[in-house]
């Protein structure tokens, strides 16, 4: 079992005096742990088949299989092994799966083992060659310094670096998994399911608050899962089981294991990534692989625990150097001994538990190097009683070994701990467990806006004063003993519940008795001195993932990077996917020392979301594929689909763009549709136009203030084109408004602006003119609209409408009538965006399909053709009708567009935008004017957006550049009706330049010349419209 080959621990070179005579050499212990030995699993790591058990993480299984090297380092290409046992792991970053299923950047310490798991360590094959060339000469700021130089050189480097950079490989196909999101509201959200978090959740749930408890591990218990501690008379895990059972039975408690709170945003909004099927290793089409929980909590209790701080010494990145807590966790939780001969390096009592556990497992403890001169805690006494050799006031200053730890240099420390008091000596060992103290996991608290504060007594950064309704509990608060965590958690939970309106802030929770060892004061070193200065000693790593050394930080300080944020960016300290969970505090301490100041004044960098990496899939959720956006469909959508329409997205609407027949090209289809409209009859689905029903005694008064034109005297049954301006005088929207009754109007808006216009009307009514009696109701979705356009429109409509007099006299252009079309109640507008005789038939959405079919049938003898938005654009451009947002860009006034006729100055109140039209800038003579362009070559269609310059007067060999821009093309088409290219444009002083030839230089170097003409190409007198 267990060891599946590879580099098994080598036999020790010399027998240690305190070593038991014979010790086991397999990594997997014969008994114990929270693994299920009846369920063995096979998995693959870097192509090698290995075995493990249900309950293993990938990391524990790799250790059990004797894998020492899990990655090659990012910058220097050094061997790296597993350091931690949880979210802090910087080295064991793997890609899972392959092909489209590949997921990069997963921490092996958090990957639950499952049958058939395929893992590849990301950084393996990368920088080796590149780093080889520069080994040892990549100091802090290497990239900034080295790549100063001619730009052409950088391009070559960039190609090389891009190949080498990054930690994982990109999946090769679209992600086949599904993801989703779930919103929560709760009174108390507890982040962290260790002893403090469980106690907090219990305290809050017992007073009936709505509680959510999230934890990133597969089971609740946190540190208790890896420590053989007792609560009451039973193992701590029994207490955990009972507590979780109680919470599960609470109808108002939500338990989320395998869920990482990765972002803490404003107003107590916390995002949590839940891994739902990753541990099963299978893709299920129903169950989402991951779920993003969006939790809004009245109170947040952070019980995020603490991360052990590694020791900084020479070659401390050698495989076999691990956190003391990780060594204990692998031993106790996974029954894996990460080596055989343990050397413990610590400055605190807590880590002695690792040595004691190791000895209890029947393994050899070579020695303890304790930075303190006379540690006196209970655990130290236990270790001494057990015969473990303790080197007091000593430090490990260098790890020795090639592929993994084979020994260590230890040396006595000077009184201040900054120098060595004597020469080092060597101890043989294959595992160095180190602990320089603990760093509370203040990341979420920091994200929530609390500035971390340095606690000199505990030598750690603690959460600062909360800026949101947050309480902190347990180790994140600096409470390091189990009893303190339970009490702190219960108090915090009760306090949070009370603040959310539940209970009286006194926990209904009797803290169970806990066995406690009295601990002596700790003495962190942050960096162990060496016989050489940092710049000359073997590398002393601070940030393993990004290969930042103590020497790099000292160099940054020497080069003037005094702010911790600047030093971070210069050295890349804490920039990795692990966000410097291990190295940040050591880095800050080293920087502080180099700057000759305290840690408190140096401060720590700001932590930002995400706490651990989040897949894009989870961020997208269900908003992918067919549900990528909320598509809006008209009532005739199915008909367009069946007719094979090509689609244009207009806002969120799907609109038929054109209807190609057989193998027609788009151009051919548009030519056919245009001809049909100009010669016979064609029909457009115009349902997407915004429609607003306006009612009230002051409706006309209100519209007079909102539109630039006048609506007071518009007759009932008549329509008028209106321009809405912003207060700065620029065109906001346009459309036809119809007076349905004395106190009732119907407004048309552009398709994309319907909601904005309604919000605009409400803004003025609600905030400025609440005294006006007028109400607005959106009826966009209520009406289905078919625009019948063409000389035969009247003939077609007459066949399905017998209660409206359609004659020219009775139903003139710009009017509206009510009646029935195809037997359905209908409102018919005689308005036209095509320049043809046109009736826009409006019926309720549910009648739309039937009426559309009836109109198609009625039009059949006349050759009716459905037309799409492209033909609509061509027809309106021939007439010079503007499209707001295409021909205007938010800086155009009515005069610029030649629409001064639609503005009525001198109305009693004026109108929105009126005063601005008088501003000097809006009256400049050299403003852009809306004009038409007729290209010299009738076949040359200008690209929309083409810039306009003056035509070259001389036939010079090469036109001079730059030439002043004089405007740009806003719309451009080939007009089938005219058999030539037409364009609309904004041109400086355009209206004064009719007949002039201008020039459009194109991106491909060609120049297209065109004549400036009036922006109307067809039926300038409007005979057809009024027919």
């Amino acid at each position, binding site marked *: 079992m267990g060891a599946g080959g590879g580099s098994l621990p080598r036999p020790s070179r010399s027998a240690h005096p305190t070593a038991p005579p014979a010790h086991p050499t397999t990594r997997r212990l014969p008994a114990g742990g929270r693994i299920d030995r009846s369920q063995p699993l096979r998995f693959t790591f870097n192509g090698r088949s290995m075995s493990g058990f249900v309950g293993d993480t990938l990391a524990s299984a790799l250790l059990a299989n004797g894998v020492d090297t899990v990655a090659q380092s990012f910058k220097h290409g050094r061997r790296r092994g597993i350091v931690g046992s949880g979210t802090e792991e910087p080295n064991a970053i793997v890609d899972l799966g392959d092909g489209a299923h590949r997921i990069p950047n997963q921490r092996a310490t958090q990957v639950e083992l499952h049958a058939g798991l395929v893992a590849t360590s990301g950084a393996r094959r990368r920088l080796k060659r590149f780093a080889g060339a520069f080994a040892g000469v990549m100091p802090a700021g290497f990239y900034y310094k080295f790549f100063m130089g001619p730009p052409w050189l950088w391009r070559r480097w960039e190609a090389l670096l891009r190949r080498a950079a990054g930690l994982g490989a990109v999946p090769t196909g679209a992600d086949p998994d599904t993801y989703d999101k779930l919103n929560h509201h709760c009174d108390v959200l507890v982040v962290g399911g260790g002893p403090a978090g469980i106690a907090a959740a219990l305290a809050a749930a017992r007073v009936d608050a709505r509680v959510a408890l999230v934890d990133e591990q597969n089971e609740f218990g946190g540190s208790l899962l890896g420590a053989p501690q007792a609560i009451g008379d039973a193992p701590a895990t029994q207490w955990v089981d009972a507590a979780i059972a109680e919470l599960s039975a609470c109808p108002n408690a939500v338990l989320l294991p395998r869920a990482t709170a990765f972002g803490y945003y404003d107003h107590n909004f916390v995002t949590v990534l839940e891994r739902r099927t990753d541990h099963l290793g299978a893709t299920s089409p129903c169950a989402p692989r991951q779920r993003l929980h969006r939790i809004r909590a009245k109170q947040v209790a952070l019980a995020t625990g603490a991360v052990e701080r590694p020791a900084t010494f020479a070659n401390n990145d050698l495989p076999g150097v691990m956190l003391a807590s990780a060594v204990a966790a692998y031993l106790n939780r996974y029954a894996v001994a990460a080596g055989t001969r343990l050397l413990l390096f610590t400055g605190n009592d807590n880590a002695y538990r690792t040595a004691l556990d190791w000895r209890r497992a029947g393994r050899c403890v070579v020695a303890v190097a304790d930075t303190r001169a006379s540690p006196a805690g209970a655990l130290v006494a236990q270790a001494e009683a057990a015969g473990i050799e303790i080197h007091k006031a000593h430090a490990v200053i260098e790890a020795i070994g090639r592929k993994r730890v084979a020994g260590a240099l230890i040396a006595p420390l000077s009184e201040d701990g900054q120098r060595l008091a004597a020469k080092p000596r060597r101890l043989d060992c294959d595992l160095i467990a180190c602990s320089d103290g603990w760093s509370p996991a203040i990341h979420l608290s920091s994200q929530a806006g609390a500035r971390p504060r340095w606690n000199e007594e505990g030598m750690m950064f603690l959460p600062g004063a909360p800026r949101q309704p947050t309480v902190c509990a347990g180790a994140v608060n600096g409470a390091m003993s189990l009893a303190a965590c339970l009490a702190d958690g219960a108090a915090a939970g009760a306090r949070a519940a009370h603040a959310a309106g539940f209970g009286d802030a006194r926990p209904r929770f009797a803290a169970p008795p806990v066995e406690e060892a009295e601990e002596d004061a700790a003495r962190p070193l942050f960096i162990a001195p060496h016989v050489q200065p940092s710049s000359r000693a073997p590398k002393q790593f601070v940030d393993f993932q990004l290969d930042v050394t103590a020497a790099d930080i000292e160099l940054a300080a020497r080069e003037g990077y005094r702010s911790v944020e600047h030093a971070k960016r210069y050295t890349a300290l804490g920039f990795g996917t692990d966000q410097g969970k291990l190295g940040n505090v050591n880095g800050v301490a080293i920087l502080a020392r180099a700057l000759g100041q305290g840690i408190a004044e140096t401060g720590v960098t700001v932590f930002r979301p995400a706490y651990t990496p989040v897949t894009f899939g989870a961020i997208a959720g269900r908003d992918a594929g067919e549900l990528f956006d909320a598509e809006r469909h008209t009532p005739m959508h199915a008909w367009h689909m069946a007719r094979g329409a090509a689609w244009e997205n207009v806002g969120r609407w799907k609109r038929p763009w054109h209807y190609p027949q057989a193998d027609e090209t788009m151009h051919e289809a548009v030519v056919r549709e245009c001809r049909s409209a100009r010669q016979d009859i064609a029909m457009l689905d115009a349902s997407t136009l915004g429609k607003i029903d306006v009612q009230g005694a002051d409706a006309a008064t209100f519209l007079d203030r909102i539109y630039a034109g006048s609506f007071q005297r518009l007759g009932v049954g008549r329509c008028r084109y209106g321009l809405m301006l912003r207060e700065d005088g620029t065109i906001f929207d346009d459309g036809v408004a119809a007076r349905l009754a004395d106190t009732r109007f119907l407004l048309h808006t552009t398709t994309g602006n319907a909601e904005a216009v309604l919000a605009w009307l409400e803004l003025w009514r609600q905030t400025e003119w609440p005294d006006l009696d007028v109400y607005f109701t*959106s009826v966009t979705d209520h009406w289905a609209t078919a625009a019948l356009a063409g000389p035969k429109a009247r003939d077609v409509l007459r066949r399905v409408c017998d209660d409206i007099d359609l004659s020219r006299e009775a139903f003139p252009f710009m009017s509206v009538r009510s009646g029935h079309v195809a037997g359905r109640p209908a409102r018919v507008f005689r308005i036209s965006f095509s320049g043809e005789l046109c009736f826009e038939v409006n019926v309720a959405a549910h009648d739309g399909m039937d009426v559309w079919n009836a109109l198609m049938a009625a039009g059949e003898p006349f050759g009716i053709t459905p037309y799409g938005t492209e033909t609509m654009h061509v027809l309106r451009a021939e007439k010079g009708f503007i499209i707001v947002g295409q021909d205007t860009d938010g800086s155009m006034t009515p005069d610029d567009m030649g629409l001064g006729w639609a503005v009525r100055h001198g109305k009693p109140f004026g109108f929105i935008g009126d005063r601005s039209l008088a501003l000097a800038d809006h009256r400049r003579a050299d403003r852009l004017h809306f004009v038409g362009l007729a290209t010299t070559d009738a076949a040359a269609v200008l690209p929309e957006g083409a810039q306009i310059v003056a035509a070259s007067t001389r036939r010079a060999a090469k036109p001079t550049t730059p030439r002043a821009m004089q405007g740009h093309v806003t719309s451009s088409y080939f007009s089938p009706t005219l058999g030539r290219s037409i364009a609309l444009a904004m041109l400086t002083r355009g209206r004064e330049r009719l007949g002039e030839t201008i020039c459009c230089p194109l991106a491909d170097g060609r120049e297209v010349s065109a004549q400036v003409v009036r922006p109307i190409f067809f039926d300038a007198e409007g005979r057809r419209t009024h027919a």
Partner: protein
Amino acid sequence: MPDATTLRGPRRQACLSLRAKPNPSLPAAVATALGVELPTTPCTHHRAGERGLYWLGPDEWLATAPAGAEDALQAALRSALTGHFAVTDVSGAWRSFNLAGPRAIEVLRKSSPCDFHPRAFAPGRCVQTVFAKATALIAGNADGDFDVITRTSYADYLRRWLEVAALEHPASP
């Protein structure tokens, strides 16, 4: 599946938009015309048989009834109301889905940031809110089921969204 979520719709109803300044005679006039009591508490709705009346804003309500009743109800409202009001037939503008089953709340929570916990969303409540990438009016009914009332143009999208969201019923939250 015993805890499967049942999705019905989209269904068409008679829908009238009612806007009126609240005044002492308004509730009685509306109740007479529609046969449903006017909800004046924000974010609530009243039902009477197949008719419903939903609070949308301090001077805005949505009245629903079986399809076909729109003209008669509009006429009744217009003759009953006095002062400044607006009544608009919006029967074509709204479509209604119904979600039932013990996990229906979860389908709503996947779609909207509102709080649908029974403590916050008792039967008789209704909210207009963001729903997936569209918007909707969500109403809790006496039988514990929910109506999701949405703009007609979004009905195809939301039907697909709701089908997908209702597919999965995890054993725990």
